[in-house]
């Protein structure tokens, strides 16, 4: 076991541990920061694996995202700062089993697998290669990603933006009535929407 392996193992354990903690903490904000911690550990591992760009990208992108997530939770969700401790889980034992099973299964496959041994040259200009790939061979993929991001942005705005150019954007956004001017057909949602098992 080389030093690199040791470092990788340490950060790996850190990533896993903080990952586990995400679901053990009783505050969502804390959970999102634990997740960020886990991502930072993963990003460091990437750096160790000679992928500087990806490592940094992961760390920064996730940092931003987790900030958004935290803000989001403060804005929308209940229990923003872990004021009242809670454990909101279902099918808990099955989930533990499934997670463990997935891990064991993948681990077994990984350990018995006969991967090609073809390590990257640490001196290789990884970032430049990536750039070439994006604008060369994988141009189409790159462009598709662009379109996808556009679509995601438009979609997110459509779904979440309350204020359109003509006032409340959601108003009238419902199926036509079965009779003109009547209620739409089909199952009728109960007034007020979903049930609430807990607090509010």
């Amino acid at each position: 076991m080389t030093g690199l392996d040791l470092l990788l193992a340490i950060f790996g354990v850190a990533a896993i541990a903080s990952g586990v903690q995400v679901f053990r903490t009783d505050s969502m904000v804390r959970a999102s920061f634990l997740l960020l911690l886990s991502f930072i550990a993963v990003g460091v591992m990437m750096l160790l694996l000679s992928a500087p760009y990806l490592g940094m990208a992961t760390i920064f992108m996730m940092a931003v995202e987790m900030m958004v997530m935290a803000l989001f939770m403060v804005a929308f969700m209940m229990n923003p700062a872990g004021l009242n401790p809670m454990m909101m889980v279902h099918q808990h034992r099955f989930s533990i089993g499934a997670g463990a099973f997935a891990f064991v299964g993948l681990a077994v496959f990984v350990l018995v697998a006969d991967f090609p041994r073809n390590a990257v040259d640490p001196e290789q200009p990884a970032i430049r290669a990536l750039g070439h790939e994006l604008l060369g061979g994988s141009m189409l993929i790159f462009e598709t990603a662009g379109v996808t991001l556009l679509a995601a942005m438009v979609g997110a705005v459509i779904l979440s933006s309350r204020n359109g150019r003509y006032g409340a954007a959601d108003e009238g956004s419902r199926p036509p009535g079965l009779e003109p001017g009547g209620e739409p057909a089909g199952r009728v949602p109960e007034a007020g929407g979903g049930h609430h098992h807990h607090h509010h």
Partner: protein
Amino acid sequence: MSMPIGDVAPEIAVILTAVIVLLAAAFTPQRLHWLGAPIALAGLGIAAVLCAGQLAGPPRISFSGVWAVDGAGVWARLLIVAATALVVVLTPGWFMTDRRHGEYYAMLLLSTVGAMFIAGAADLLQLVMGVLLSSVTGYTLAAYHRDWALSVEAGMKYFLIGALANALLVLAVTLLFGLYGATGYGEIAAAIGSAPAPAPQGIALAGLALAVVGIGFKLAAVPAHTWMADVAEGAPAPSAAFLTVVPKIGAAIALARLLTLFPPEVIAWRPLIATLSVATMTLGNLAALWQSDLRRLLGWSSVSQSGYALMAIAVVGLTEQALPALVFFLAGYAAANVAAFAAVTHLRGRTNIDDYRGLATVRPGIAAALTLALLSLVGIPPLAGFVGKLLLFWATIDAGYAWLAAVAAANTVASLFYYLRVLGPMYFHTETHTVPSLGRWALGGTIAAGAAIIGLGVGAQALLAPLASTSLLP
């Protein structure tokens, strides 16, 4: 490195149209948003012409192994465009009151592009991107009625299933990449071919299984089928028509394309797909049996139809009839399903099957269209669905999977029961009540889809002749 832009010209046309529609929507008052429909139709028309142009050329892989232009792919993209056009026609009446009416066309077109990318992808990464594009737009389309709880719930559920499915797909791609060192289909095939040990690796098996689930999500195949019924019921009717049909076309081709990479003697994927096919069609049919909501019933029937489509995929490569069967079946299915949803749309979303009593007396034309659609889904000749199922049976029997055909036949019998639960009361009750309808757009869509059902059945030769020599590149 070559960038034959022409090979993705149809996609570009659709994307540009989407952008135009989006801009138009931003600068026109809501009452003019319906103009998005003709614009979208024009764009789709151009895309269709461009697609048709690709049929002439030889099958080829372009964009450095990322993009396949082959018979199956081009026909699927053409189908996607055509089906979308029908859906576009259904839209204006339905969304008249929506403040974001115009943007709907843009989302629809972007989703179309996603499906097209899925159909043509020859690289795992391109496939993932296509699925992602198709998914995010799909969630939006499903949840488009922000002020309607069912729609929002359908969109959320679609998203939750999709997010996990897409994660699994990315995992699958990663595992395959680790094993074969590449994501392009050509390179993967070469890597498999040059592998010294023919024994399959667990990683490859897990990767393939994960990929099947991931793509199966778009196809609404077991086990990621659970969104289909919810979307069919809760989403806006045009979205439901779109989501039950268009992504499936792309996904079916993509699944076939991916599976043919793996030699069946090394990885026994045929029994897997056959099992999946049986599970999907049976589950869909059983769940549809007692539905009292027509849209939900159509959703479940759509699951079972995916099961039939998987029959062709299970035998792809074993018989030259498999690909024509797959494409033709998808075409027939698209026509029938869109026709059914078009009828529902035209009747302002009428969905309780009890509300359909006596429809034949009040609105014989719409009743006839719905009848054609449902009978075509059963596979009654000479409608499109019949030819499709015939070819599926043909392919499976020819490939030695006669048992699969027998199971499908038994399922068809069971399915007749629930389709008749809708049809019977339509004709056998004579009580009359007024049945308001939506308008000329949806009516036009219904007629067009109904005509397609008959046309594809009676004039099957027109599509079958070119399909006979169709190809599927790895």
